[in-house]
């Protein structure tokens, strides 16, 4: 039974009204981290570090000078974000196990707002996989059913939020690594537009695909957190033209395209839940297909592997056995791609963007399931759905990579459960830099589908 704990938004209100303190929130999170230790969602949580931050936040609130509405709220950090007080390992033996003494920009922003940097969450090694089955601290377990995976690579963050250890956590997303565990664990996850959120201090997987983003228990929570992600950062050139979070637009009509067809298959169970969810919206929803999915997937995979291999090249020459065997195989494949392969992939990337943004009839959000299947069982290496049989790894990224290849803002929201009680999520993709518009559409859908207020 999962605790019906507060959302981050409810914690903001409770702190403002004096109904709780940062100390009490930190103590609650520490107790729950211990109670849910079997999930293996954390690499490290240091009680003294947590309580020192909480006590400082409590003092600020007692003196009537909180740094922000989230001052004193515990936030968990995926273990590929640099953090001042904790080492950053990427859950790999190939990572340097020392603290660099620096915060990633997003962590720095949250710390400046008084958020309690709670601990570092378990992840798929180097974010280079979507199951969280490969980690040097062991697998992460799904709070809804320990026999099932959390998905990844931000699986520890997903489990920690779903279990109520923390109300919010940070993830990073290169092919779905925020959305996948959000869907599998029944929480909300947001991947900003490429170039809208600083990647500085987040260990890279693929420079042109990566995005940092929040995972939380409501879309209102995501709205609270996005200002700490969005905006220009001199330390990340991709954000040079990024606009800060601009607030949500008012209610508008929106046209949604429900994508399906070859290459976008899903299980009957997932399809039924998504169709039922969409039947409850007043938005205009039309169906459409997207051709040549296999070609675009090859482009995403080529870009992913070549960029990852370039980043890791020096380390793999020195410490190849520090990587898990599968991660090393990915990196070795990337080394063997040719320059022409990569340029073709970039040509296909441009074509996908033209197809989605110019050729397709005008849309405000694209809709897909986040995952084609509910969270798979541990040790289940293959998934069958819609006439396809694919590896569990490929089933996790089945839809999500599209958002990274196109650089679109994306989110996952829970919309139902499987017959076994596992969460099923729906993914929305918005227009480039339309992060606020996408969140506004999602909030309306959340009200209509889930009755969220």
């Amino acid at each position, binding site marked *: 039974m999962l605790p019906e704990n507060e959302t981050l938004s409810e914690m903001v209100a409770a702190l403002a009204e004096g109904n709780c303190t940062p100390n009490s929130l930190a103590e609650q999170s520490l107790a729950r981290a211990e109670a849910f230790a079997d999930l293996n969602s954390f690499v490290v949580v240091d009680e003294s570090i947590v309580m020192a931050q909480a006590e400082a936040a409590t003092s600020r609130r007692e003196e009537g000078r909180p740094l922000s509405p989230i001052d004193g709220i515990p936030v968990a950090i995926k273990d590929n974000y640099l953090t001042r007080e904790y080492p950053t390992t990427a859950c790999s033996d190939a990572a340097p196990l020392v603290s660099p003494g620096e915060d990633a920009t997003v962590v720095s922003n949250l710390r400046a707002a008084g958020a309690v940097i709670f601990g570092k969450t378990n992840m798929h090694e180097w974010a280079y996989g979507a199951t969280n089955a490969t980690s040097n601290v062991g697998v992460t377990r799904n709070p809804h059913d320990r026999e099932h995976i959390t998905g990844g690579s931000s699986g520890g963050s997903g489990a920690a939020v779903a279990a109520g250890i923390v109300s919010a956590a940070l993830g990073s997303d290169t092919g779905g690594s925020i959305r996948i565990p959000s869907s599998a664990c029944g929480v909300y996850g947001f991947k900003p537009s490429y170039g809208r959120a600083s990647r500085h201090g987040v260990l890279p997987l693929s420079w*042109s695909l990566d995005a940092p983003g929040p995972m939380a228990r409501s879309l209102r929570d995501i709205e609270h957190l996005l200002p700490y992600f969005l905006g220009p950062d*001199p330390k990340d*050139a*991709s954000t*040079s*033209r990024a606009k800060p979070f601009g607030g949500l637009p008012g209610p508008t009509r929106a046209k949604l395209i429900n994508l399906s067809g070859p290459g976008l298959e899903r299980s009957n169970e997932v399809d039924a839940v998504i169709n039922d969810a969409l039947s409850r919206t007043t938005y205009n929803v039309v169906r459409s297909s997207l051709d*040549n999915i*296999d*070609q*675009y*997937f*090859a*482009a995403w*995979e*080529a870009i992913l*592997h070549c960029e990852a291999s370039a980043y890791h090249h020096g380390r793999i020459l020195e410490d*190849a056995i520090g990587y898990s*065997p*599968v991660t*090393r*195989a*990915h990196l*070795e*494949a990337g080394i*063997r*791609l040719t320059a022409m*392969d990569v*340029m*073709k*992939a*970039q*040509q*296909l*990337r*441009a*074509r996908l*963007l033209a197809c989605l943004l110019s050729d397709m009839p005008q849309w405000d959000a694209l809709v897909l399931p986040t995952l084609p299947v509910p969270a798979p069982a541990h040790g289940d290496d293959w998934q069958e759905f819609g006439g396809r049989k694919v590896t569990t790894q490929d089933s996790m990224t089945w839809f999500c990579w599209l958002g990274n290849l196109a650089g679109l803002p994306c989110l996952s929201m829970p919309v139902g459960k499987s017959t076994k009680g596992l969460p099923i999520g729906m993914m929305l993709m918005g227009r480039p830099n339309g992060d606020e518009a996408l969140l506004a559409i999602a909030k309306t859908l959340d009200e209509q589908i889930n009755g969220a207020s």
Partner: protein
Amino acid sequence: MSDDLTEDQKKRIEATLKRIQAGLSRADIKQLDEPAHIFDPEAQSVARK
């Protein structure tokens, strides 16, 4: 292939490359299709500490 790779790793590498190159080769890419590269000189013009 590196000598220290296992047979399983070699198979994974070959399968990955085959899948990527098959997908890319099916694409009807025109010679003049510009890649989605990003080159923004102004973005590099920032104050360094």
